[in-house]
Structure formats: structure tokens, C-alpha cells
């Protein structure tokens, strides 16, 4: 089972439009990697380059130690020689073939014996729970069933690498949730390497073992999802992950020993880095606060409730300290009256300090309100 390695992979469409810029990443054997980013960031292009459906402008791609693409060496292995499976966003089921035929078509190409093909089709249909639709045409299936047929067709030849291009985006919310669980199960059962393209951060969070967050063709961060959530490399990563998204408060900071005093114009607080860092005496910062770390309690800063959206399990709040608006999450079934006053404070050491000029993360630390 292969490890996929991309070295300086670049893709340029036409003149001047860089879809992917010098991408370096390694997808280890058996991982479930999500390529995440806003639309047009180059994630689908990257996936298609791994598949061989798109030819990179520059760079090299390796499957284990086998070079499948290199612009310098002039190597470009065609998709059928890369032993991959590809799941298309719109399923790409052949409309003129029954479900059975759709699945067996690829196996026939690989010259499998007839009885084995039949056995494999039966087996995979059972796994994907589409047994009773085997003789139907794609147009006679619902979206979710078509989706499962597409997965079955892709999995039937036991590909070692499964590439998926937003496979759940055409499904309704409930089905999408079911399919997520199914995909995760499938990953475990097949042991294959999964590469998954999505623009939905919660999908990437919940499914993958590692997330590659891409912006405008440039890889921003490549790490396990919880790390991406907790320790984002820069403001873009922090903002992209999480819903409701992170609060960003601009502030002026003064160094005081190993602490930094942050002045936000409306309140002043003391930031203690988790590890000592080297910062200038004075600097402009952006403080990143996850909504769940804004505690609504009996003491602390006074804030006005702008909106309160209870969803049963938790309540999402918008609170304002003068013109600084923060979202907060209060767990449990509680509601807050609009325009009422609440007190908020901060606890824990998961507050992120960004450099305002470069937008890069400096460190994580704890926060104490002084005034």
C-alpha cells in the first residue's frame, strides 16, 4: 500500500493563473487525508493531478518510490496505471448501464474471470446495501443510492488509493451525515489510503486523520484536524475551521516579563504564553478566542446580549462589549433575553496570539482580564 508524495507540484491554467503553487506533501499509507479549502483554491486540481487526470505544469509525484509524474524526467503515468479509485462529485454513473453493469465494467477491463466478477459484485453490493437495485438503471435510483453505487463501482477492484472529489456535496443533510459515518467505517475496513476533497470544514474535521488546508493554491497547514482547530498556523486557518468561527480581537501589546499586556481599547488583559517566546517590547496583535472559551458566568467583563440562538444542546450567543462583538457558546438548554447584560470571562490556555502584520500564529496561552 503506497505512500503518496508530492514534490513541488505546480499547476498553471493558461497564463498567470496558478491553481496549485509548489505543493509539497506526503500522504502516508492508510491515512484519511482531506484536502480542504474554499472553492477555487486548487484542491480538486490537486486530487486530479494525483489521479493523473490532470497534468501538473511542474513537479514530481511519487507512489511509494515509483515516480508516476515528473516534468523533468518526462514521466506521466496514465490514470489506469496508477491503481487508484476515483469517486466523482456527480458520481459519473454510466446512464445506459444497470447498477450491476456499472460495477462489473471495470472488473471486465481487468480481465477478471466471470465467476469472480459476479462474486465481487454481489459482495460489494451487500457491503454498500444496494443489493435490491442491481438491475436498475442509475436514473431509477435516489441520490443516496446513486452515491452508494458510485462507491461500489470505485471499490470493486480493491484500489489501494481512493480519491474522492466532494462525494457528499450533492446529498441532503441527513444522508450526508449517514454517509460520513459509512465512509469512516469503510476506511477502517478497507485499510486503503483515502484522499478526500471537501470545502466543508466540519466534514474534514469529522472524517480525516489529517487535513491539508489550502488557500489560493498554497498549502496553509497540514496536520491532524484537532491540531488544525486548536493550533491554527495563521488567521486564515483559524477562521476557516470551526462554526461559529473564532473571535478575533485586535489589540496593542506590551511585553511585561514573560507576559504580554494586551490592550483592546475596550478592555485590558494579561496574556501568558504556554511556552516562553521572543516578542518585541511593543507590537500589534490579533487575539483569537474560540467561542467555547468565552465563558458566560457571574463575574468578569460586562457585555450585552445581541442575539441568543438556543439549539437545545447548546446556545450560541453574540455578546457585545461596546463595539467588540464576540460569539460565545453556552452549553445546556438555556436561553438569554436579548439586550440583557451578562458577565464574561476567560479560562484555560487555548487562546491564540497572532501577529497582526503577518497574520501568523505566535503562540497559545492563557488570558486574564485586568480591567
Amino acid at each position, binding site marked *: 500500500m503506497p505512500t503518496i508524495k508530492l514534490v513541488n507540484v505546480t499547476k498553471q491554467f493558461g497564463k498567470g493563473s496558478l491553481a496549485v503553487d509548489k505543493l509539497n506533501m506526503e500522504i502516508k499509507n492508510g491515512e484519511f487525508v482531506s484536502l480542504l479549502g474554499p472553492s477555487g483554491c486548487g484542491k480538486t486540481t490537486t486530487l486530479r493531478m494525483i*489521479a493523473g*487526470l*490532470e497534468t501538473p505544469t511542474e513537479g514530481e509525484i511519487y507512489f511509494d518510490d515509483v515516480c508516476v509524474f515528473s516534468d523533468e524526467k518526462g514521466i506521466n503515468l*496514465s*490514470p*489506469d496505471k496508477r491503481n*487508484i*479509485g*476515483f469517486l*466523482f*462529485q*456527480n458520481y*459519473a*454513473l*454510466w*446512464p*445506459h448501464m444497470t447498477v450491476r453493469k456499472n460495477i462489473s*465494467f*471495470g472488473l471486465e*477491463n*481487468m480481465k477478471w474471470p466471470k465467476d469472480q466478477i459476479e462474486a465481487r459484485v454481489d459482495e460489494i453490493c451487500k457491503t454498500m446495501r444496494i443489493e435490491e437495485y442491481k438491475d436498475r*438503471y*442509475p*436514473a*431509477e435510483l435516489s441520490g443516496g443510492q446513486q452515491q452508494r453505487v458510485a462507491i461500489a*463501482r470505485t471499490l470493486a*477492484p480493491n484500489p489501494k488509493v481512493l480519491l474522492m472529489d466532494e462525494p457528499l456535496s450533492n446529498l441532503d443533510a441527513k444522508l450526508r451525515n449517514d454517509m460520513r459515518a459509512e465512509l469512516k467505517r469503510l476506511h477502517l475496513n478497507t485499510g486503503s489510503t483515502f484522499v478526500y476533497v471537501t470545502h466543508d470544514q466540519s466534514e474534514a474535521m469529522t472524517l480525516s486523520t489529517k487535513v491539508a488546508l489550502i488557500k489560493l493554491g498554497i498549502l496553509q497547514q497540514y496536520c491532524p484536524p484537532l491540531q488544525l482547530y486548536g493550533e491554527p498556523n495563521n488567521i486564515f486557518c483559524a477562521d476557516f475551521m470551526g462554526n461559529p468561527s473564532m473571535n478575533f480581537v485586535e489589540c496593542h501589546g506590551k511585553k511585561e516579563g514573560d507576559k504580554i499586556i494586551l490592550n483592546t481599547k475596550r478592555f485590558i488583559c494579561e496574556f501568558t504564553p504556554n511556552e516562553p517566546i521572543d516578542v518585541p517590547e511593543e507590537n500589534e496583535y490579533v487575539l483569537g478566542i474560540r467561542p467555547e472559551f468565552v465563558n458566560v458566568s457571574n463575574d468578569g467583563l460586562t457585555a450585552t446580549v445581541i442575539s441568543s440562538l438556543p439549539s437545545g444542546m447548546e446556545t450560541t450567543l453574540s455578546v457585545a462589549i461596546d463595539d467588540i462583538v464576540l460569539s460565545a457558546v453556552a452549553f445546556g438548554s438555556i436561553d438569554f433575553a436579548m439586550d440583557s447584560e451578562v458577565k464574561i470571562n476567560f479560562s484555560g490556555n487555548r487562546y491564540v496570539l497572532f501577529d497582526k502584520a503577518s497574520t501568523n500564529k505566535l503562540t497559545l496561552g492563557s488570558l486574564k482580564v485586568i480591567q
Partner: protein
Amino acid sequence: MKKRWNRIKTFFSKPYNVLLVLFIVVLGFLVVLPLFSIVRDTFIVHSSEKSRIHQAVGTFTTYHWNRLFLSEFRKSLLIDPLRNSLLTSAWACVVSIFVGGSFAWLVSRSDMRWKKFLTKLFIFPYIMPSWTLALAWKNFFKNVEITGSNGIFHSLTGLTVPTWFAYGEFPIIVVTGLHYAPFAYILIGGILHNMDANLEEAAVILKTKRLRMFWRITIPIVMPAVLSTIILVFSGAMASFATPQFLGLPVRYYVLTTELYASINGTNPGVGYILAMIMIVISVIIMFVNQRLIGSRKSYATVTGKSANISIFHLGIWRTPISILVFFVVMCMSVIPLVTFALESLLAYTGVYDFNNLTLSFWIGRAQGHDTWQSEPGILRNREVYRTLWNSLKLSFVCSLGAGTLGFLAGYSIVRRRGSFISRLVEDLTFIPYLIPSMALSAIYLSMFSSKHGIIPSLYGSFAILALIGTVKYLPMASRSGVNSMLQLSPEIEEAGIVMGVPWVKRMTRIIIPIEKTTIVSGYLLPFISAMRELSLFVILVTANNRILTTLLLFYDEKGYTQFSNAVNLLIIIVVLLINFTVEKLTGASIEKGVGG
């Protein structure tokens, strides 16, 4: 009682209900009644048949049916024309799908050169009148044996063209096939172009060999387009009159339409009416087959997708030779015919392709008396030409006004009452003229309006009957476009007006018509252009008094005035192209987009 009265009142308080009822009455009179009238006409004696049946005009007779199905003339009147019609239509399908399909593939999937330019020219034959290529063929390949003079091909090569190549079956097939090739290109190319590239990519990833992919994935997916092309080309070829008339008549090769024309213009219209019924039956069968095919389980609606990057097939060393070959074929279909018309219209003596033999006389010369080489004035001096041109324009205008307006109103009322019985009835009624081949429809109108009986006036020889039949024939076209455009307009837009108390006329003129402006314009444009180049629909009904440009062309051709017929033909083509071009520029609506209607 009061309740029922109230219900009727509410029903008629809705403008679209009033419209629907009106449509049922009018279409019943103009479309359904004639169908019965023609059946009656196959059983009675007509005035031109007095000498052969020896019975009073209008009496009951089975003479026509006997003659057509049981007499010794069965073969020449029915079997041969039927066989010829079916054969030429079937082969025309093959030609058009081969030519149009290959062209579609080359344009959408290969790296052929000059694509943009070639596609523009390839569409040409579709905009031009259907006989354009037939006349060009004749100009090019005619031989001395049949016409008394040789064509351009002979003068270029010195070879005499064999008769089978110049006239009859073979050229009819080729010419009809080429005329409909743009159809095939537009339908098949549309699918090839929009076909989701993922469908092929999925096959590549599953290790499908190139050839297997072509046969098992690409071909089956374009199959529906191929089928609908077959249906359209077949029924179009079955109904075509001008091509077999120009190319078949010199060698007495008859198809159903030309036989029908000969019978009705000759001494046995009764037989013609039966032939018309046979054509209707065939056309209904084709429609029925089409319905069955479309309603199959494999829905292809899911096929199209975003095809950002279709893999282009590289023709390699064949790129230039293929491009040149295609260029040559396209030129033969679009430009060269026009050149031959111009050339032929300038020859003082036909068949002599010599620089000294060129003259503008047939365009601007004066008439020189009856037995001279120019018995009539040049067409730009000819009052008859101007009269027919004016007639043609007037007729096209009236037909497009009638069909376009009725089509829009029908579309509006059908969509507003969608799902109800009355709306479906009107929709079906407006569709019937589409099922009836032009020639058969005009036979029907001839039978119905030839003399006054009951509430039906005698309209034979009048402008009104031409306007009427044109309106009816193009109604399906216009009402389909009306339905489609109204379907895209949500009823809320009108309801917002109702809520604010805007009266119906104002809602139509101030809300709906402005929104649907472009589709309404194309609803008028299509009938106009169709009427301008229509021959088979009008040819039976036209008399010397109300001649139009296309029948004038036929008249000159039948008389053997080659220069005049070529000049008139060029005139028609120029007018059609001018109108098409102007409207396309003005509205952005184009005839190519209306294909399939």
C-alpha cells in the same frame, strides 16, 4: 342551477380559460375538421375526374381506393413512390448522421483546425431552403442526355456524368442527407459537448481501453441524440418535396410527395388525398416510435455536467489532411452552391461555360419576344418577380404574426392551466399540424376549402388560404416556444400583478411580454423564415394570381428557364440570409438554437 351558472361565470372570468375555449373552437375548425374532410374526399368524384369516372361531381365512389390499391396502376402510383420515399429517407438518415456525427466529433473532441469558421459554414444548409443543394447538384452534374446540356462538372473534367449519378435516387439521398447533416451535428454535438467528461474519466480510471470506451461509453451516450436525429431526418425527408421534384422528375423517379403533387395537379386528386392520408399515418407511426424510445428506463437526463476539461483527441499527422478534407466538404455544402447559382444565372446559353457566354441579361435585360433566348425580362426588371417577392414577404409576415401571436397566447394559457384536461387538449391540438407533412396538410386544405360548403367558405386561389395554412402549420413551432418560455416564468410574477389589481391586458403588455421579449421575437422569427423558404406547403394551393417566390422558382425550373430559376433561387437565399442575420444581430435569437422544434 344558480351554482352551476356561478361556476361557469368563475371559469370564464379567467382570461386563460377564455383563451383555451377559443383555441378549442378555432383549432377544431382548422385542424380536426379538415381531417374528416379529407377522408370524405377520398370517396367522392372531383371535377377534374369527370372524364375518367363518368359520374356527377360529388357523388360517392370507391374508384380512388380501387385504383390505388387494386388496379394495375398500383405499382406506379403507390408501391414505387412509397418504396422510394422510405428508401431515400432511410439512407438520408445514414448520410446525415455520418456526416453530421463525424463533424460533431471532430469539432468537440479533436484538435481539428479552423473549428469556429467551419461550424459557422456547416450550419448554412440548414438556414438555406431545402432545395438549394438539389439545384446546385443539378447545376454541377446535369448531363446532356436528360437536360440537353451538360453541367459544370463536365466542363471542368470533360467527363459525362452517368444518369444515375446526376438524377434520381442517389443524388436525392446525398442531397437530403447533407441538408439535414447540420441537424445531426447540432443534436449529437450538443450531447458530445455537454457530456460529462467524468463519465469517460471514470472509465479511464477503471482501465478501459480506448476503443472499448468509444463503443461502450461514448456511443451509447450519444445514442439518444442519434435516435432523435433519425426521427427528425426521416420525417423531414419523407415530407420533402422540392428535392425529389428537382432531381427525380427528369428521370420520372417519384416519391410520395411528388406523386401526390402530380395526382392533385393532374386528373385524379382523389388518389392524391389517399396518398396524403398514408403520409399522415406514417408520420404518426414515427412519432409513436419516438415516444416509445424517449420513455425508456435509461434516462439520460443525468448525463450532462460541468465538462471543464474534455480530453481532446490528437489527430497527429492526420490533423492537416482531415482539416482540409472537412473544409472541402463544408465548402461544397455551403459556398459552392451559391457560386453555381450565380454562375448559371449569368450564362447566355446553358451548358456553355465560356467567358464570352456570360451576360447580365437575365438579371437586368429586357424581354425579347417569345421565341428568343430571353422570353422574359431580367428578374430585376421583371414585375412578376417583384410581385411574387412582395407576396412572399407579405405571406411570411402574416404567417409569423398569426403563428407567433397565437403560439404565445396558447403557451400562456396552456401553462397557466397546466395539468388540467382542457389545457392538455389544447396542447395536443396545437401539436397536430406538426404531425401532418406539409404536402398532406395542403392537400387537406385544398379538399376542405376548394368549394363552399356549409360554414366553410371557398378560399381556393386566395391569399387567405395561404396565410391560414402557414399559420396553422407553424403554430406547433410557435406554441412550443411559447410553452417553454412561460414555463420558465413563475406564476408569482403575474400573481404579484393580480394582487395589486392590475387588469389582464395590462399584466400581459406591461409585465409578461416585456420579460419574455426575446423568446417572443424568436417565436415570430422562426415562422417568418420558414414561410419565406417554404415550397411544399404552398405549392398545391398557389394559383397564377397569388404566386410566391418559391413557386415562381419551381415554375421557371419546370419550364427549363435555368438562368431565371437560378437567379430567383439566389434571390430567395439572399433574402432569407439577410433576415436571419438581421434578427440574429438585433435580438440574439438564432435559428440554430431553434433546431429540434
